[in-house]
């Protein structure tokens, strides 16, 4: 009797794994069942193997690079000239190019994405929401190479009217299109967390006589802030890893000068450049790809990890 009650309570609490593990059938001993179990187990574990292979490849070849280049010269050097006689391997120009794009893109995506999310979840009439939500999602489904085309063919000429001195390849147009490409990520992830704020606390605000403006800005947005901040970080990480648009539109001149009207080079664009050239295996140019790839991997992995932690640490759980 007590057993059944226990099963019931645990099932109601939703921990079905535990219920099955304790009270369900014993795993079948039939050979077919065993084979299936093992195949699935291997497939489940394989993703860990993929991560391990990525890390192994990046690290083992980056070691080849750091045998020839001092680690601190790489990390703190302000000149990146991997070709020619006087090679210099300071990562800061590539890092600053990447940050310029990611910050510029965030400056576009965060205000517009958050505004879109707040409008669509709090103010919009339902028919407009039904129409606008999929349209915004289409923006996110457009391939990044298309955004590169837009930057080069559409956005840069328009910018030329306002800034006559702008270069053909410039950081500004690349930042704008990367910003548009990550906007749907900000808006849909923020919408998700705005939508789950319970009606009860919203109504509590109205019951206290708060205006709608204050209910939205003082209750709903703060309640969803963990998801909103996580969406910012994830979108920033996406912008850091963005490749095609910056390769096409931002140029190939690594520099530490923060001038949005001039060409720059990001880490991803450099990886493409070195891969399209013919660096022979074992040469130092060949190894740069892995050193830069490792830097990129560590950066984006760090941001993603941070986003998960923020959600877990600051999420308000509502019943």
């Amino acid at each position: 009797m007590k057993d059944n009650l226990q099963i019931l309570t645990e099932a109601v609490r939703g921990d079905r794994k535990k219920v099955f593990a304790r009270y369900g059938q014993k795993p079948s001993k039939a050979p077919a069942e065993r084979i299936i179990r093992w195949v699935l187990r291997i497939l489940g574990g394989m993703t860990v193997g993929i991560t391990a292979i990525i890390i192994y490849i990046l690290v083992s070849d980056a070691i080849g690079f750091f045998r020839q280049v001092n680690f601190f010269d790489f990390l703190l050097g302000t000149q990146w000239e991997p070709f020619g006689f006087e090679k210099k391997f300071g990562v800061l120009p590539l890092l600053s190019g990447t940050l310029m794009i990611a910050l510029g893109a965030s400056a576009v995506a965060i205000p517009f994405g958050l505004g879109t999310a707040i409008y669509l979840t709090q103010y919009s009439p339902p028919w407009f929401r039904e129409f606008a939500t999929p349209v915004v999602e289409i923006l996110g489904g457009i391939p990044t190479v298309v955004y590169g085309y837009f930057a080069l063919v559409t956005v840069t000429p328009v910018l030329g009217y306002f800034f006559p001195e702008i270069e053909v390849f410039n950081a500004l147009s690349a930042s704008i299109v990367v910003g548009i490409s990550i906007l749907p990520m900000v808006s849909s992830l923020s919408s998700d967390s705005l939508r789950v704020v319970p009606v009860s606390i919203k109504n509590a605000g109205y019951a206290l006589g708060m205006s709608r403006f204050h209910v939205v800005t003082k209750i709903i947005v703060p309640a969803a802030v963990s998801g909103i901040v996580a969406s910012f970080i994830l979108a920033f990480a996406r912008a850091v890893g963005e490749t095609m648009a910056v390769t096409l539109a931002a140029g190939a001149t690594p520099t530490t000068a923060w001038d949005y009207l001039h060409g720059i080079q990001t880490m991803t664009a450099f990886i493409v450049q070195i891969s399209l050239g013919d660096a022979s295996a074992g040469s130092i140019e060949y190894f740069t790809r892995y050193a830069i790839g490792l830097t990129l991997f560590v950066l984006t992995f760090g941001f993603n990890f941070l986003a998960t932690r923020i959600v877990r640490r600051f999420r308000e759980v509502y019943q």
Partner: protein
Amino acid sequence: MIKFDARRTRRYQIYGVIFQLVCFTANTVALFFLGYLLVDLIVSGVAGINWNFLSSPANPNPDRAGISSAIIGTLWLMFLTAAFAIPMGLGAAIYLEEYARNTRFVRFIKLNIQNLAGVPSIIYGILGVTLFVNALNLGQSLLAGSLTMALLVLPVITIAAQEALRAVPDSFRLAGYGIGMTRWQVVRYQVLPVASPGILTGIILALSRAIGESAPLLLVGAAGFIAYLPISPMDGYTVLPIQIYNWTARPQAEFHAIAGSAIIVLLVVLLLMNAVAIYLRLYFRKKLSYLHS
């Protein structure tokens, strides 16, 4: 003691209107951007689409260049990627949701899949060129390209399938166990049929991501100039996004124009796939609505 202050109420109302207007503008600007870019694209590119453009291979002369080799390459790549990624992603999801207990290792796998989905695609390109092209000696073939793509979309498919499996009510499983089914029978006959629309939607969306993705393929060697159609998985190939990249990267305006035409073709394909996914979701939501009532 709180006093009623009509002026303050009025002020908050004005704030509210302004704030709503600001949010509305943000939303409209996003939609306006999309509209502007698409109109500009259609104006410059739609004239270039005709049967010749769709049926001729790449050509150094922009007037005679076409996208047939890119279309065939994209189809090849999509089918091979699907053949590798779907069984792996689905298997991993079934294991994690239906078999695994909630141990520390399983939680680690789940976190790891989340993180893999956030790894930039170009890193997968480095993985592909080092592992498949060089170490396994597959060369710059369709096989190497699609294996790379499969690894890229694997976490996306796995996460979508996990969510679809999680949405199946436990009563279905318990009913199966109640009549003495084994775990695999429950998965095969109870859970998968109900979860399949969600899984299918996830697969279509993941494949549409694979079709548009080009950064890893640049590294594993999808060449821009392929004047023949690939006929086996070991052939060289090009795909639509790579073709677009190569044409856009040239300085001449004629190539930009045909890049625009190729983009329209690519976007139409992606839009169709998304439409199918949305249709499936709506159709099955109606059909399985008894689950939620």
